[in-house]
């Protein structure tokens, strides 16, 4: 996934903003959503696990996996920029 580094015709620099737009990332989220929403359980399902309805545990597990996946994406795909890049335009010009 290449990121653009030149200012766009709209006047804003779009570099580094496509870090999370790969198709597979959103496929993973879609799968987690399909698993996490309990649409596929029988209407009168009464099974329990660890004292909770089983479908509840399944939804919570999908949520936990989604949280881990998001944390991993943030860790690995959001580069920590140098302090220079974090400075406002006015301060960069002076330095």
């Amino acid at each position, binding site marked *: 996934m290449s990121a653009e580094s030149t200012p*766009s*015709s*709209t*006047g*804003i*620099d*779009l570099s*580094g*903003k*496509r*870090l*999370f*737009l790969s198709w597979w*990332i959103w496929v993973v*989220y879609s799968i987690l*959503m399909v698993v*996490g*929403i*309990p*649409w596929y*359980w*029988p*209407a*009168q*399902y*009464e099974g*329990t696990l*660890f*004292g*909770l*309805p089983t*479908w*509840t545990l399944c*939804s*919570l597990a*999908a*949520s*936990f996996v*989604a*949280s881990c996946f*998001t*944390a991993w*994406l*943030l*860790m690995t795909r*959001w*580069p*920590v*920029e140098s*302090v220079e*890049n*974090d*400075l*406002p*335009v*006015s301060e960069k010009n002076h330095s």
Partner: protein
Amino acid sequence: MPFGWGGITFLVCYLIGLLFIGWLGGRAKKDNSLRDFYLGGKGVGMVVLLLTLYATQYSGNTMFGFSGKAYRVGFSWITSVHFMTAIIVGYLLFAPGLHRLSRKHQFITPNDFLNHRYHHRGINIVAPILMILALGNYLLAQLMAMGRALQGLTTMPPETAYIVGVVLLAGIMLVYETMGGFRAVAWTDVLQGVILMIGFSILIFLIWTQFGGIAETTQKLFNSSDADRVKVLPPDPLGSRRWLSYILIFGLGASLYPQAVQRIYAARSTKVLRNSLIAMVFLPLMTSWIAVMVGVTGAAHFQGLDGSQTDRILTIICREVQQSSTLGYWLVVILFSAILGALMSTADSCMLTISSMTTKDLYLRFINPKATESQLTFMGKWLSWLVVGILAGFAIYLNSLSSKPTLVKLLDLKFDMLVQLAPGFMLGMHWKRLHGTAVFWGLITGLCVTFGLYSNEWIQSTGFHHGLFGLLANLIVAISLSLMPLSNKEQICHDPKKAA
């Protein structure tokens, strides 16, 4: 559940502590600039950012609204765990770019990005008004929850206690915000966030010790009447569609909370923001899930509540615990401080953001472009008093009605509006061709569809939020107009380099 002198003294000390922190925030002021007042100057570090994000996003709605909704629908309200996670996923679509641009161009309000990106007068008028209305709705819900929180605390008649709760707590918030601006709000959020975390831990403890744990609750509901038994069964197809709708509208709408966008601006560095979001993504499992367990436990043990009464289930559980032992009494006192913290930390952030958008986006841009920063800061402070005064009056009026709105209903209304800004922020961050006119007409179309269909029965039968239908229309218009070839004149309007 009236508190004795010990409990009241603890709460008074806590509220005085908030005022003291506000005073410290005022002392730390560097200058009279808007950035210093609304974003705390050069920004905040990891601990403050995480706790201010946490205290701001988990509010009175989480404590009262989510537990009330879980009381009504049961375990299906795990939806709230999913949609609170979806908010952080939504950030992936725009937060990295927005943070970088905000540092470079010194953004203060969310509309500063839209103005920088589109330079469109229509957007500059509609977007801030839309965000102010949405936040006003949210602030109203917090003020109403403050009143309801105090109803159970004193021996005063409920109506009087409600009014005292709204006026007293809103007054304290206004004083510390006027003294210290963003610093006061963020620093008080640290205290409120810590107490909130302790409060949720106490709730888990209470559920296990006082009510026999979640297993007993589940069995009790399985053995109940059909109306309560449904609370432990998987949702029907309509419930599943509503679940999906909540994930989408929160992921796309709640991630655009104006006060949260300002916290993206306020992060001292990319690393601080990234690490805070990593921690935030796990918090729904420790907060929303606990609120669901409270609601479900209430449904099993305190049956028969109805409508907006269900938002009081947490108070009812607290009363039960408080009367059981001295330990229970003090746990409830701390829990009550956490509830106040959740309400006030969200409300003060809304208040500060409304004030910043009114002064910078509307007053400075359209009414008095020559105003100095110190004039604007002064005006922003007094605007907060005016806005909160009006909304507090409205909250008291709503409570006097025979049919009181539930907190989750107020929450839904806000997202139907906020989600219409998603194309401007999220699509605009990645797609160069999207231009201001397209975003503006998309926004107008989205709002017209959302509110035009508000009482449509077919839309309600689908289970999807009206705002999502509006967003679909919004996207179709914005993308279609952006794909159309532009005339030379329009190209110049949309290209700042050519315009220059």
